[in-house]
């Protein structure tokens, strides 16, 4: 085996990381385009896919009772049954059916969509044997068609573009010319030129990322956001508004079950919508003279986690998990191994179930429908000219670049200077070497301005020493933190964060115990398998210490004993601690 190949599939901790010019916003754009199906391989699903069921809402507006014409009312929207999905387990278990989110049978948008999909499928089936890019000797990002054909419709070769043009002309539609992302609802309203039409989106902790998605030059858009139900329950929403007369490739998947129900509802803004509630999904659908509108809720009447379909709990994963367990505890009997796995299995199922979205009721689905002012959208998409949002798209792209921009050279210099200043003010502490780790490797780094998951305030400063390798394997990590309540770093918040950290781990289901380290109050916990941590607050130095052991064969008692050996003494830095 060649030495380069030895590292295949591995990623060492603490890799040497140099600065790179790779730009987050551009990577984000590429990823977004591909997920929406703009590049490369044959896609199985429409560009924007989510779970959900489309009710035959249109019947109400057309004045036609369409239900009687179909065996199931979703048949009007069906594109593929059963659906081919990324996760085949889901397809097998829930009999997913894929449906159009842009029109229904008989409408030009639906007919063009299905005809284009059939063409695409046939084209890629033939091309699969001979990679067309390789045949041309070009990279698979190359395309000979205009950008909107390639990135918005997967038409990379002129032959495909010609076929797309023919289909679009046949049904009297137009193509999207461009799109742009947005990260705030106010940007969406500005692009469309409307009053706000979302009343309940939940903003992120910074308060400036409430609704995000993308918008096209004709006003069609996708919106994603969270919405609060009663108490602390939150659901995620994906909404699509597609201008009639525009060609779009957007589909969703339905869930066929006896537990579904559908009904019509008149919202507070006076619009009649169709609602559908399934165990794992829910839909709100309506249309105006100028657009199809669909609101998908990523939850249902009885969301469930099925362990039998989870790759985390299958036989292969079990074998791998037990292999790792035996490295730490080689003397376990088969019965003990099985018991340990069962405990891990039960813990994983409980955790996954705790992460399920909350179940929603009929009334809550109606409340969600009320939170979207369809009347505003109906006025905007009133069947006359499409909203012209083309001028706003470059503006939105600039805003995206500003949001994900890297710090400037001046900003980096300021960060480095601030880091050196802080490090110089700190005492540096020495961890007594642990038996078996004498030859272990030490590393240090500092984070500045990093928001930690269990601290609801800006992180102050942290220094970490890691001990890795040795006979026992695993990692032992000692970190010390100082938090600030103000940006000026004049008011300490370190003591409060100890409590925040404890609450966080308790909420994660860890068994947390009191701990005293050299007169300092703290706590310790173990997850029972591979992680144990101790934390304590040194009031004299206003420092929060955290000592963690990962796959190091230490339980809570072991980590507590190790914590007691941490000696606090001034120690000059032998070499400067590099920034990450």
């Amino acid at each position, binding site marked *: *085996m*060649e*030495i*380069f190949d*030895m*590292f*295949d*599939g*591995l*990623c*060492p*901790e603490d*890799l*040497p*990381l*140099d*600065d*790179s*010019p*790779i*730009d*987050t916003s*551009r*990577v*984000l754009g*590429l*990823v*977004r385009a*591909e*997920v929406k199906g703009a590049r490369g391989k044959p896609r199985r699903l429409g560009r*924007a*896919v*989510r*779970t959900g069921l489309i009710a035959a809402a249109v019947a109400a507006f057309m004045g036609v009772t369409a239900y009687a014409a179909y065996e199931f009312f979703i048949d009007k929207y069906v594109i593929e049954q059963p659906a081919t999905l*990324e*996760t085949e387990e889901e397809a097998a278990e829930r009999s997913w059916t894929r449906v159009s989110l842009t029109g229904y049978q008989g409408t030009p948008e639906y007919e063009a969509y299905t005809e284009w999909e059939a063409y695409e499928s046939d084209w890629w089936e033939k091309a699969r044997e001979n990679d067309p890019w390789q045949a041309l000797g070009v990279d698979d*990002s190359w395309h000979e068609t205009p950008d909107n054909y390639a990135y918005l419709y997967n038409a990379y070769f002129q032959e495909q573009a010609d076929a797309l043009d023919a289909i679009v002309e046949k049904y009297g539609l137009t193509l999207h010319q461009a799109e742009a992302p947005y990260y705030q609802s106010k940007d969406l309203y500005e692009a469309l030129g409307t009053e706000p039409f979302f009343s309940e989106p939940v903003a*992120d902790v910074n308060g400036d990322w409430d609704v*995000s998605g993308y918008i096209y030059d004709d006003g069609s858009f996708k919106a*994603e956001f969270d919405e609060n139900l009663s108490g602390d329950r939150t659901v*995620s929403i994906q909404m699509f508004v597609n201008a009639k007369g525009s060609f779009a490739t957007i589909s969703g998947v339905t869930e066929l079950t006896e537990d579904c129900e559908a009904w019509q509802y008149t919202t507070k803004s006076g619009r009649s919508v169709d609602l559908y509630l399934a165990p794992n999904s829910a839909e709100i659908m309506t249309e105006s003279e100028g657009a199809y509108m669909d609101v998908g809720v*990523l939850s249902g009447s009885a969301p469930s986690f099925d362990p039998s379909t*989870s*790759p*985390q709990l299958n036989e292969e994963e079990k074998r791998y998990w037990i*292999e790792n367990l035996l*490295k730490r505890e080689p003397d376990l009997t088969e019965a003990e191994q099985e018991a340990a796995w069962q405990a891990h299995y039960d813990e994983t199922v409980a955790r*996954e179930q705790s*992460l399920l979205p909350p179940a929603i009721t009929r009334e809550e689905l109606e409340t969600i429908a009320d939170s979207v002012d369809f009347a505003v959208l109906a006025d905007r998409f009133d069947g006359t000219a499409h909203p012209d949002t083309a001028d706003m798209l470059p503006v939105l792209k600039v805003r995206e670049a500003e949001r*994900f921009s890297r710090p400037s050279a001046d900003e980096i210099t300021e960060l480095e200077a601030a880091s050196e200043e802080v490090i110089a003010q700190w005492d540096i502490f020495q961890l007594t070497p642990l038996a078996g780790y004498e*030859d*272990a*490797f030490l590393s240090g780094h500092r984070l500045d301005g990093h928001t930690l*998951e269990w601290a609801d305030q800006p992180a102050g400063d942290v220094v970490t020493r890691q001990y*890795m*390798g*040795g*006979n026992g*394997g695993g990692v032992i990590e000692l970190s010390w933190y100082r938090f600030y309540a103000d940006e000026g770093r004049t008011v300490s918040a370190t003591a409060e964060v100890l409590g925040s950290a404890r609450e966080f781990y308790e909420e*994660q289901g860890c068994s947390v115990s009191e701990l005293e380290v050299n007169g300092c109050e703290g706590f310790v916990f173990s997850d029972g398998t591979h992680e144990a941590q101790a934390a304590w607050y040194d009031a004299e130095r206003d420092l929060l210490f955290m000592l963690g052991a990962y796959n190091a064969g230490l339980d809570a008692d072991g980590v507590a004993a190790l914590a007691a050996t941490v000696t606090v003494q001034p120690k000059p830095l032998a070499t400067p601690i590099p920034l990450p």
Partner: protein
Amino acid sequence: MDETTALARLRRGDERALEWFVSRYTPYVGAIVWSIVGGRLTVQDGEEIAADVFLELWRSREKPREGAVRGYLGAIARSRAIDRLRRETGQPELEYDELDLAVEGPEGDLLAGEDREALLAAVDALGPPDREIFLRRYYYGQSAPEIGQRLGMKPEAVRQRLKRGRDLLRRMLTKGAFESGNI
């Protein structure tokens, strides 16, 4: 949102969760990718490779375990970058004396299963600066002159440390030596 929540949402197919991971980990993924292809491919190539890494996360979103997403992304980043580099330039190439690390064990393919963890532990045990030199050469594929330039060393000094590292690694990875704890 925190990473636990983001991972749960990612597994449910929430595209916004994917974008969360892109925003959080592009600097890390980009650093690995650029450490491999920088100076050989363009920045645009590097960005495409980085994007491929996150798309692989999207396609295999059930695979990474909680708390291990960073390592999962790092491994994919290296794999994608090395593949692309090989396809376009034929690099990285071994020098003649690097072919001496023909590691074998009783079962033939030593580096399978648990021995991969042994490799990581053995590399970690090299200590600074040898560990960094070793990873730059054999994880990133950087040349001895490139490494020397970054670390302020002469290329020959780099090669000597690499040889010492390979010798040590060969001893460490021989099953008998490792089991006795002679790291």
